[in-house]
């Protein structure tokens, strides 16, 4: 028998502060046992229940891509008891990881398609995972054009600046960065995500879009995409909810008869339209 509530034990390998106000950090974890890392096979868009043993556990999207072998990464915003605990952790600290949980981005079904990745703010973590996966030399040939549109309040909030720089240097991906209002030194787009999407006008032909961000951004962006002839089955979202178990048992993350933790977190807009508006 294996107790599904026992986490794998990992050690903090590195900690990166991602934003100027210092409430978002990316923590890189190294599994204590190599064989457990091998068992932790994941795809972009999945999440894990990570815990500070003694304080508690919470569900966090996996920010690293399975193609970045050796470690896993989580980008964590300081919010409650457990996430504040993560922010105080130091290199070498023990962190529990259970998972991977959830369905993840449908990277198999996305093969042969043009991919549009639209993110707002801190919700970019599993999008980072997805784009790194798509750009990996083993996978890049399986996908068509890749467009990334990533918006933030101000330049200090832009996550993953190192990988964004790498992507901008490549000619097989289009990266559009935007911030809400003009700021000194900012040379890219200015404006909310929705109008920028309208301006970039990604084609819906043979394409899949993944949209992650705050609810208002998703709402306005989807309205623009519908104008641009995107169908509801072409638009994917990743949902969040309060969760305890991450494995479809504790009950609280249901929307109608679906659980976000096991049936999601990724749902197409077409699927969401079939579910009650309770998320």
């Amino acid at each position, binding site marked *: 028998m294996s107790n599904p509530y026992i986490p794998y034990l990992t050690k903090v390998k590195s900690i990166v502060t991602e934003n100027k106000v210092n409430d978002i950090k990316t923590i890189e974890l190294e599994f204590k046992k190599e064989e457990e890392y091998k068992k932790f096979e994941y795809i972009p868009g999945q999440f894990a229940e990570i815990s500070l*043993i003694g304080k508690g556990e919470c569900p966090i999207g996996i920010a690293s891509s399975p193609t970045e072998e050796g470690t896993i990464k989580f980008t964590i915003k300081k919010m*409650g008891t457990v996430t504040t605990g993560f922010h105080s952790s130091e290199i*070498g600290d*023990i962190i529990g990881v259970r998972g991977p949980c959830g369905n993840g981005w449908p990277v198999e079904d996305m093969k042969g398609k043009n991919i549009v990745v639209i993110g707002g703010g801190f919700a970019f973590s599993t999008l980072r995972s997805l784009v790194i996966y798509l750009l990996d030399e083993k996978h890049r040939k399986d996908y068509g054009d890749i467009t990334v549109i990533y918006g933030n309040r101000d330049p200090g909030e832009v996550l993953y600046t190192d990988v964004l720089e790498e992507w901008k240097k490549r000619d097989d991906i289009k990266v559009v960065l935007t911030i809400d209002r003009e700021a000194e030194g900012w040379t890219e787009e200015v404006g909310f995500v929705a109008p920028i999407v309208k301006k970039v006008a990604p084609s819906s032909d043979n394409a899949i879009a993944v949209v992650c961000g705050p609810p208002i951004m998703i709402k306005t962006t989807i309205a623009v995409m519908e104008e641009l002839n995107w169908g509801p089955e072409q638009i994917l979202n990743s949902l969040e909810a309060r969760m305890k178990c991450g494995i479809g048992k*504790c009950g609280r993350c*249901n929307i109608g008869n679906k659980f976000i933790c096991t049936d999601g977190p990724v749902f197409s807009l077409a699927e969401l339209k079939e579910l009650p508006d*309770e998320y």
Partner: protein
Amino acid sequence: MENKILKKDQIGKLYNELVGEYKFYAPKNHKGNISFEQIEKPEDILLDYLNSKIPPKSVLFPKMEVLFEYTLDDKDVEITDRQDLDEKTLIFGIRPCDAYSFELFANFFSSHGNVKDEIYLKKKENTTLIGIGCNTPRTTCFCTSVNGNPFKKDDMDLFLTDLGDSYLVEGISDKGKSLIERLSWLSNAKEADLKKSEELAKKAEEAIVTKIDAKGAVKILETSFEHPIWDEISEACVGCGTCAYLCPTCTCFDVIDETDQYNKRGRRIRIWDTCQSCLYTKETSGHNPRNTKIQRCRNRIMHKFSYYPKNYDLLGCVGCGRCVYLCPVNNDLRVILNKINKIEKKEEKKAVV
């Protein structure tokens, strides 16, 4: 296999014979409430009761349960798994509705998602149920409306019928049959005992007068999520959660770390939780997908009569009636279901007129 007779004054003998091998649970008067408790002396076993206030789900899914224990070193953590899941448990005196609820529990804990709740399932595998038919169902019982019956035997290992001074003992599962073989001192049942048991079963079924069209409600609920009826249904509710805590099919739980900072050790536990609590779905950001009482009441009913049937083709209710007679504001599930069943009829009328 022949049916047997267990005299009521032989309960002590049965207990003494099995208690070494099993953790022996039976209904007991516990601080004024009847609940299934681990029995230390056979005199404590309550034989004359309608049903327990606290459902026997608490035996395999206790109010508080340790998931694992841990010790915290300065820079390390050691985790200790549960060691007690191979112990054998026997539940004596369980009612058919509650025995059926164990099947629903096991179904849910093994089917949603690809990870099974091995803690529950292992315990269930090691559990033997000696159940009793309900000669006198409560007025609030409605098991016959939700695929149950006061003499439903198939979820038990051994099935007893109270014949007055003795019990008729029927072996149902292989586990139960081999238990009968072991209890070689049980006397053989006579033809008259079987006849009496059949009569009692018939009488009990007739005694349940509540008839609810649960299947009809399932169908109507498919299209009633936005219906104003939820306003009415939730109006009296005080959100205490009794209906869910004491429901034999409610499986929801919270997970908490309990740490003894001085001794640097602790345990991660799960405790019963309820979708009737406003904190249940409240996220750290402050956002709450089910912020109102209407949404929370609706979720409980929809879960049992719409979501559960949609996912597993089974009703999420066993008709025990606990939520009916224990609700402090008398928000009666039977009335709620009847109201739901009238939704369509009203509309049909409209359509005709």
